[in-house]
């Protein structure tokens, strides 16, 4: 005893309320998770343009290696890769079907190349400064910066993120509307109970308590459901995603919601349930007091 206890309700309607809250929570959670995964994926895709340094043809392998080491030692560079003329020719052969044509070459016409990958954290201005610094190196014949595919990636990402934000914010509004509406209608049904208990001398806290409990219960149940839904979605998608990653030779795995994510989701559910009930009960408590 000590409080009004649970108000008896049909289990069906309880389930429905929890279900609505659960799905409403699961959707934005999945979308944020998706955004997370895309960000993980795209940092793997090296967010910076590569620079290809075409070196003077006169350099021998040792000089090229030294130069690569010097460049690689710079703070602004993540990685360097040497492409010897032989490797270059090999790559060229494998690019489309020119294998036969290139075997006809008497000598290798390709220069040694160093591919430089600037650090991902650099701003475009810093990248330009780096390129300028590399361009004036005496052994560098000329330098080429691949920006095109980056512009494309950028555009795709922008589109994707905008779509995800629109959907996520719509879903956010839905969650608030749905939870608020559900709890509001739920409580409207019990207006009489609130009024009667107040008439008899119950404090606001006493009246509020069972509603807060049931709000919390619905919210938590919704949170649990949301976790289950998100994890199910993750499991369903993980297969195709890692198959896809496999095609690109990557070992990418979709990150799941994890412990802290589940915790956040439960927390959000509980919080929404509590706040929703608090507000809805509060409205009634004020409405029935004489002015």
């Amino acid at each position, binding site marked *: 005893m000590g409080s*009004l206890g649970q108000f008896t309700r049909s289990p069906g309607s309880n389930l429905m309320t929890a279900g609505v809250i659960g799905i409403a929570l699961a959707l934005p959670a999945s979308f944020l998770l998706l955004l997370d995964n895309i960000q993980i994926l795209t940092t793997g895709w090296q967010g910076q343009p590569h620079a290809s340094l075409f070196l003077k043809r006169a350099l021998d392998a040792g000089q090229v290696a030294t130069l690569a080491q010097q460049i690689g030692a710079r703070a602004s560079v993540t990685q360097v890769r040497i492409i010897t003329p032989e490797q270059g020719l090999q790559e060229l052969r494998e690019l489309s079907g020119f294998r036969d044509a290139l075997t006809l070459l008497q000598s290798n016409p390709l220069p040694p190349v160093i591919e430089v990958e600037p650090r991902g954290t650099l701003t475009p201005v810093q990248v330009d400064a780096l390129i300028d610094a590399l361009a004036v190196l005496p052994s560098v014949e000329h330098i080429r910066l691949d920006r095109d595919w980056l512009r494309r990636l950028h555009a795709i990402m922008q589109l994707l993120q905008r779509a995800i934000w629109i959907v996520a914010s719509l879903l956010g509004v839905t969650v608030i509307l749905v939870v608020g509406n559900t709890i509001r209608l739920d409580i409207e049904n019990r207006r009489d*109970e609130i009024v*009667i*208990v107040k008439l*008899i*001398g119950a*404090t606001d806290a006493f009246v509020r308590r069972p509603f807060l409990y049931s709000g919390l219960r619905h919210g938590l149940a919704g949170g649990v459901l949301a976790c289950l839904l998100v994890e199910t979605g993750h499991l369903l998608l993980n297969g195709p995603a890692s198959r896809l990653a496999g095609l690109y030779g990557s070992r990418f795995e979709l990150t799941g919601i994890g412990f802290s994510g589940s915790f956040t989701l439960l927390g959000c559910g509980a919080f929404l349930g509590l706040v929703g009930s608090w507000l809805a009960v509060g409205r009634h408590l004020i409405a029935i*007091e004489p002015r």
Partner: protein
Amino acid sequence: MIRLDGVGKRYPGGKDALRGVSLRIARGELAFVTGHSGAGKTTLLRLIPLLERPTRGQILIANVSLTRLPRRRIPLLRRGIGMIFQDHRLLNDRPVFDNVALPLIIAGAPHREIGRRVRAALDRVGLLDKERQYPVTLSSGEQQRVGIARAVVARPPILLADEPTGNLDPELSAEIMRLFERFNELGVTMLIASHDLTLIGCLGHRRLTLVDGALVDDGLGGCREI
């Protein structure tokens, strides 16, 4: 114990339900309120536990002015006043026992105490065998008696009853009135609104008569015939 000074109540629609009512009810007194339908009896009773605020005048309960009572003290005021409502006002989704126990639960009475006192109250109104039924499965008279049991279970110093015997047969009404008199003898201050002039008249208590919201008569009722 209860004192009204020039109390007026005008409802939002513009209706004057009470006009300048002044009265004093001493500690331990029992008074009846009568009057035609719409005279303002219910309104008068509802002002006392602050279910409604007067638009004019002032009310003092145990020498405390209700006008200056802070909002958070209202629940305490109401716990000290048992009220029987004309329309019962029971919780329909809880059994009789829980309904009657409500004032004790609100006041935070110990668990064992609750069971004992609820059963005692139900016994007095003759409903001990219905403790597990829901209000909707009761007849109107039975619901009214559940309301009476709920009002008296916490032994409040003031008891207000709005037409407590409207749905009861004459024998039962007389019995409930005797119950109220016993409470009164134990020192409870009582104000009872009733149409049942036959019943009131013969008991010989103070009678307040309202006509259109004004107090027109305040005296002992005689056993007159209609």
